[in-house]
């Protein structure tokens, strides 16, 4: 079997803290126009893990449980979105673990409301605490190699650099930084989290060597979320194959594909 074909085989799994996932796509549960639309997008995506947020329960009205709209086969990944300090992120993670009985957490400590860029310093502080408490920490962070190393040293199970602001759909704005991170941290599980807008963006992330992509808005805000979810699934598979196939070297000038000799005169 060729290397490329191997990449698509059952052996090529996304592994997070010893847990295997056949799909390299992780998707969100926010912003869908309806729960039904969300569910069909989830099914189409083939994703095995979905993110959810933790919020105060409304006390003035009864709420239907959002979790009932998630397929029981999905691994739920609670996030700490909306937290601006390490302390609040740690509290949120603990609450999520208690309710969901999972030690997985997408750690997100925001530093600024307009960009939703992460506060790397607070993220690292929270990561250290959560790892000590037995959490499997997947941190969203700025695309900084040194921070990635610190997060891995702290015991994070993966690194999740952003590619562009959350929900922006700008695509991969930092290919050089992602590539450097991939090359310098070959053994780390690297998941590109945030910024993807359409299928080609997901393919690029994978071609740069990401182990997976986490996205929400690109699917939820598509006109047809289920169709976009399918596109993302295929793009991630294609990008992964291309990465493992090893792309040709770039050259500035043409290199003829047909023989130069023997042309009729």
């Amino acid at each position, binding site marked *: 079997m060729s290397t490329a074909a191997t990449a698509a085989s059952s052996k090529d799994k996304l592994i997070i803290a010893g847990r295997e996932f056949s799909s390299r796509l992780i998707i969100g549960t926010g912003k869908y126009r309806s729960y039904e639309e969300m569910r069909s997008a989830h099914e189409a995506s083939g994703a095995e893990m979905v993110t959810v947020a*933790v919020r105060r329960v409304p006390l003035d009205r009864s709420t239907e449980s959002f979790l009932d709209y998630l397929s029981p086969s999905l691994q739920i990944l609670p996030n700490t979105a909306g937290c601006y300090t390490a302390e609040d992120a740690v*509290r949120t993670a603990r*609450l999520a673990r208690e309710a969901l009985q999972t030690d997985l957490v997408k750690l997100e400590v925001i530093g600024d409301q307009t960009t939703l860029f992460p506060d790397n310093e607070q993220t690292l502080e929270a990561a250290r605490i959560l790892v000590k408490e037995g959490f499997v920490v997947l941190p969203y962070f700025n695309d900084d190699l040194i921070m990635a190393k610190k997060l891995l040293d702290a015991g994070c199970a993966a690194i999740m650099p952003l590619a562009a602001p959350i929900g922006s759909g700008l695509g991969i704005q930092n290919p050089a930084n992602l590539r450097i991170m991939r090359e310098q941290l070959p053994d780390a599980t690297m998941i590109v989290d945030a910024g993807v807008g359409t299928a080609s963006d997901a393919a690029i992330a994978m071609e740069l060597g990401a182990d997976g992509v986490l996205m929400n808005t690109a699917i939820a805000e598509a006109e047809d979320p289920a169709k976009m979810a399918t596109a993302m699934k295929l793009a991630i598979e294609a990008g992964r194959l291309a990465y493992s196939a090893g792309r040709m070297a770039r050259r500035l000038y043409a290199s003829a594909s047909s023989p130069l000799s023997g042309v009729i005169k």
Partner: protein
Amino acid sequence: MKVFVNGEPREVTETTLAGLVTELDLPVARIAIELNRDVVRRSDWGGTMLKDEDRIEIVHFVGGG
């Protein structure tokens, strides 16, 4: 007794956390509770006594990315 639930002051007659959850008619299986910034495990709700000025956070899950 007055406690704070999700930041709002509230007069309660119930004396335990489990009683409060019942009084608020919340979906027990899908929530988590923090009392004065510490998570209280579900199995401990019944034995956790409330006192005046307690600050309680009750959370559930919503869509997110």
